[in-house]
């Protein structure tokens, strides 16, 4: 059995649907919905009545095409386009926190490392200060205080 071509495989559309397509989108197949273009073209090729349905939309298309006019600026439409863009941006933005989270994951070990290094630095610094407190200078001061207190003389007298 011969394999059917892609266009033959396309689902057949009804006459009603074909009329709806040309009345909505015009006679130019390029403007027809992508998913139905092949089926509509096949319908047009196989049905003589298709030419009748296309005649009027084609006349309107020619009228509109022959006179290039700028798209009419309309505040409502502009606002709708802006709103649609914002919706798309918001939809894209939903992925943003995940990305931030991922970035945080990447940063976290480095931040931890930095915190540990700072802590270690502080700890060593305090150790150093402590060492200074019990250093030779402070020992000398203690001996002087001890000598000035007279405790040593008292001990000598007792002995």
């Amino acid at each position: 059995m011969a394999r059917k071509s892609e266009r033959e495989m396309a689902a057949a559309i009804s006459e009603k649907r074909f009329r709806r397509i040309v009345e909505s989108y015009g006679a130019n197949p390029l403007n027809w919905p992508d998913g139905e273009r092949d089926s509509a073209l096949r319908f047009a090729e196989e049905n003589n009545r298709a030419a009748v349905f296309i005649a009027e939309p084609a006349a309107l298309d020619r009228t509109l095409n022959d006179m290039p006019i700028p798209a009419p600026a309309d505040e409502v439409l502009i606002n709708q386009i802006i709103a649609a863009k914002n919706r798309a941006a918001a939809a894209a933005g939903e992925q943003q926190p995940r990305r931030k989270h991922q970035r945080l994951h990447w940063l976290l070990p480095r931040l931890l490392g930095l915190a540990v290094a700072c802590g270690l630095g502080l700890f060593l610094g305090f150790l150093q200060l402590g060492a200074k407190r019990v250093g030779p200078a402070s020992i000398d001061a203690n001996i002087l205080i001890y000598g000035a207190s007279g405790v040593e003389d008292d001990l000598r007298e007792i002995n």
Partner: protein
Amino acid sequence: MRRRRDHPLPEHYDAADDGPSPSEMLAESKRAQCVREAVNGLPVRQKAAVTLCYFEGLSNREAADILELNIKALESLLTRGRRQLAGKLETEMIELKG
């Protein structure tokens, strides 16, 4: 060396212009004005649908997304919009057919 001779144009020479005549240009301008008025005269949502699908060349899905409609509703707007345009531009359509 041969000298090149200049051949002056005839006294009443007028180059033929292949472009449209002033009356044709005027008629075209009037028709364009009619189309513009017809499109601008559509109800807001029909005008938006026609503008997006026809003049901006967006696909039906893109236009439906912008207008926050489903495809069926968009097609309904387009059909009504085009019918209204056809009614308003009947004269222009007949002229172009002829």
